[in-house]
């Protein structure tokens, strides 16, 4: 078609964003962040320090030394509140590291593939296909199960497939961005490729990518919990909600709170991330 090409739709979709919900979600998220980052400074909790005399205390029970176990204790007499707080830290650190790693790698690969096209694109796209086809959590299970336990391994295991989402999104956006007239204009001038990508592509990819980052964060947190639940990945001295849930499995009959509480904490974190993510997606992103 010639003539007027970029006309708005007859009824431009007005996305009903819900700033209040998003604001609440943000507050909750910040709360988790504070708990995860500052909580450990306030609550002294040693994941290895057991107190076998105070095992399996219910919520609000009093310990042998007179202190109150606000959220009860687990099978080794460890404070549940402490585990939740330290678990929050683990989840947040892993979630952020995974997202950061995936974002950087995915953004770099995706924009390069989309911008350079040709063989670079073919190679990266096929790699993406392969990783997409194989269940990410399975890959993580295989990696985390085979390598030595450490936080780094977990981050690695979750990132191996995690960057693909970013790369796909970035590639797709870049493919359409590189057809934009302003990119053509810059090409005509002869702007070098790195400058081109940084100045003319990435600023427009970063919005949807940020929106995706929240989703991926939620996914990483859930996957980490899954790995820990299966007893893979994290060293036992690192508290993880998934691990606590797994530990509580054997006490479902007698001490349900061990499994229930970390699950609730986890759900709360992921829900608020999801709400914020939905909001960001509406504001910045593409719908898928």
């Amino acid at each position, binding site marked *: *078609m010639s*003539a007027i090409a970029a*006309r708005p739709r007859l009824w431009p979709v007005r996305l009903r964003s819900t700033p209040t919900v998003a604001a609440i979600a943000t507050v909750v998220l910040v709360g988790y962040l504070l708990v995860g980052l500052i909580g450990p400074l306030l609550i002294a909790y040693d994941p290895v320090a057991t107190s076998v005399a105070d095992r399996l205390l219910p919520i609000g029970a009093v310990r042998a030394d007179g202190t109150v176990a606000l959220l009860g204790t687990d099978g080794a007499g460890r404070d549940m509140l402490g585990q939740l707080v330290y678990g929050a830290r683990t989840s947040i650190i892993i979630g952020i590291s995974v997202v950061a790693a995936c974002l950087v790698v995915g953004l770099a690969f995706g924009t390069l593939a989309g911008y350079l096209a040709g063989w670079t694109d073919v190679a990266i796209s096929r790699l993406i296909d392969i990783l997409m086809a194989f269940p990410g959590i399975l890959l993580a299970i295989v990696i985390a199960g085979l390598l030595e336990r450490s936080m780094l391994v977990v981050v690695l295991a979750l990132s191996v497939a995690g960057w693909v989402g970013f790369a796909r999104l970035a590639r797709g956006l870049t493919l359409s961005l590189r057809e934009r007239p302003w990119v053509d204009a810059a090409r005509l001038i002869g702007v070098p490729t790195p400058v081109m990508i940084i100045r003319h592509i990435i600023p427009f990819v970063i919005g949807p990518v940020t929106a995706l980052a929240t989703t991926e964060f939620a996914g990483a947190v859930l996957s980490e919990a899954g790995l820990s639940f299966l007893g893979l990945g994290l060293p036992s001295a690192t508290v993880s909600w998934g691990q606590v849930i797994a530990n509580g499995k054997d006490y479902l009959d007698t001490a349900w709170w061990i499994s229930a509480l970390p699950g609730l904490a986890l759900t709360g974190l992921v829900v608020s991330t999801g709400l914020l993510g939905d909001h960001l997606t509406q504001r910045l992103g593409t719908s898928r």
Partner: protein
Amino acid sequence: MNRSSNVTDPSSAVLDAEPAPLLRVEHLSIDLPGPAGQVRVVDDVSFTVAEGRTTGLIGESGSGKTMTATAIIGLLPAGAAVSGRMAWHGEDLVTMAEQDRRRLRGRGIAMIFQDPQAALDPTQTIGRQVGEILRRGGMPAKEVRRTVIDLLDRVGIPNPETRHAQYPHQYSGGLRQRAMVATALAGSPQLILADEPTTALDVTVQARILALLRRVRDEEGMAMLLVSHDLRVMAHVADEVVVMYAGRICEVGSGREVLNSPAHPYTRALVVSVPAVRSKTAIAEPLPGNPVSPAERPSGCPFHPRCAKAQDRCRSEVPQMRQVAAGRQVACHFPEEA
């Protein structure tokens, strides 16, 4: 192209007399929610569409043409607030129940859209989409098929027997627009709203679609509200024209008169800007500044910042519509000689 006035045609007798207004729009205002609160995108607009005649809505981008047409068919975006009256056969469309309005759509008032690609469902055959309104009306399938093929034939789609089973992506732009016209005709409406029906098309195709619209109007006696920013299209098709600027009407009158001797400075500027093909014209003295959107409509006459003749009065006082000749109204404090 053969717009002969046939004296034996009874409708043209009516046409030459004072034609009965089919739709009378009075003081229509539309407010839309914008990022900074409600914006009055259409402000106090009044005009009529007469039976069997074509009224053209002219105006530059953002002047509120589409919103006006959309208000008539009743499909404004959510959150739109409409005030004023739209009299249709004695009933007010503004206050009419949604149920009744829906029944009116397609059958009483139909609409043709600018971008025929986007307006057709990509997963359904053209025939299905053209005949949808008939099918919903309870017509038997065989008859629907026959009527659809007949309709496609009438709008000039070759081989309608095979073409009706094809999908939109198998149609060219011009054919798609023809299919849109056929869809609008399917309900035998009394009024067709055509929003920029040829803007996306090549000149050669545009000429054919315009001819088609004229033929349809003449043959079926339908009234048409034609929305366009292309004055040349208007000059060829519209009986009456309404010129809009920033959500307000500048000038109303018969097409020939308005475009030949514009009374409003804005209309005049538009007319001189149009380059001619059949004779060499110099590039017109351009208007200063840019068209304003309704959101930033200036006080007084919305056109005053770009008007060479603007006075203090224009800056403060909104000019009301005033009659300058028979069937000719202008919203200007200092209209040109009509």
